[in-house]
């Protein structure tokens, strides 16, 4: 399997993992290890000032910095301005200038705002961030973000956490055909076959969180997604069998018992 290359950095794994929704830091760490992932997202939130929060529950203490590059996200931002502020805070907190740019004002569907996302991407690229924007599967927007200097585009398969798979397939095919930066299918991948499907289509990587984190056994499910991503990528690199309307026999069509 060829390496994934984002912004001149090489990754052996094509599976990017989110850290949300795991039952504990220990389970998360074990799942990240089983997934083989090298890129890991984290979010940023206000620190609790009531004294109730566990002051030692630091997410970063469960992520092995030697193995994983941190990708702080801008979730919670509703505008480009808020996303830029979170980006700068994330860079200071993680010492990583890599950024998952996501601006989704509507909590019901969490669909990304394309106008604010483009505005923020243009500003943050200029500030030296390596920007990986989460977007709807819009080929025109993907091109605009690429032109703005984004390191990848990350179109959604279906809404975050919905487990509905690659519902945007036709548009993602166009994005992949046109892109000169890596295409990461992010969101909605509910089962390993969804991840394999995206990889067979030629996606460069996938980002998975909920499907692993809420599984009955997140560590085994992380391994299942790893295998699916590798299988899908291998099949894409080899080349898929063409589809045909009619059958093509696999066994010889001569020497039948009833031949005269």
């Amino acid at each position: 399997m060829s390496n994934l290359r984002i912004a001149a950095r090489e990754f052996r794994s094509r599976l990017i993992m989110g850290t949300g929704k795991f039952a504990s830091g220990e389970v998360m760490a074990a799942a990240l290890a089983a997934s083989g992932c090298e890129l890991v997202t984290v979010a940023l939130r206000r620190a609790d000032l009531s004294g109730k929060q566990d002051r030692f529950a630091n997410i970063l203490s469960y992520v092995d910095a030697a193995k994983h590059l941190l990708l702080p996200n801008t979730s919670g931002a509703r505008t480009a301005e808020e996303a830029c502020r979170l980006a700068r805070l994330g860079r200071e907190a993680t010492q990583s200038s890599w950024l998952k740019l996501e601006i989704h004002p509507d909590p019901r569907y969490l669909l990304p705002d394309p106008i604010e996302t483009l505005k923020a991407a243009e500003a943050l690229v200029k500030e030296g961030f390596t920007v990986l924007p989460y977007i709807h599967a819009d080929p025109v927007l993907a091109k605009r973000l690429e032109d703005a200097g984004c390191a990848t585009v990350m179109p959604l398969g279906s809404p975050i956490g919905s487990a509905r798979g690659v519902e945007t397939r036709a548009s993602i095919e166009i994005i992949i055909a046109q892109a000169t930066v890596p295409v990461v299918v992010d969101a909605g991948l509910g089962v390993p076959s969804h991840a394999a499907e995206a990889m067979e289509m030629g996606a460069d990587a996938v980002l998975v969180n909920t499907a692993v984190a809420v599984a009955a056994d997140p560590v085994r499910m992380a391994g299942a997604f790893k295998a699916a991503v590798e299988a899908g990528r291998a099949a894409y690199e080899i080349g898929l069998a063409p589809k045909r309307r009619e059958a093509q026999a696999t066994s010889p069509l001569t020497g039948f018992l009833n031949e005269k």
Partner: protein
Amino acid sequence: MSHKTARIVVNGKAQQLTQPSSVADLLVALGWKSTQVVVERNGYVVPRSDVGLVMLEEGDQVEIILPVAGG
């Protein structure tokens, strides 16, 4: 010194500073270590290396943020 009664807003909530305080002093008072969190003051990030140098002033808007689990 106006610092003695400086009123600031931290994470959306009003706070009263009883003595001149740096950002680092505020973090200590709230029980956070400067290595765990990152601070924004009036829209600008306070670099971790500067938390002991930046003094809080009347009307400051402060955000104390930390990395959490997320996708």
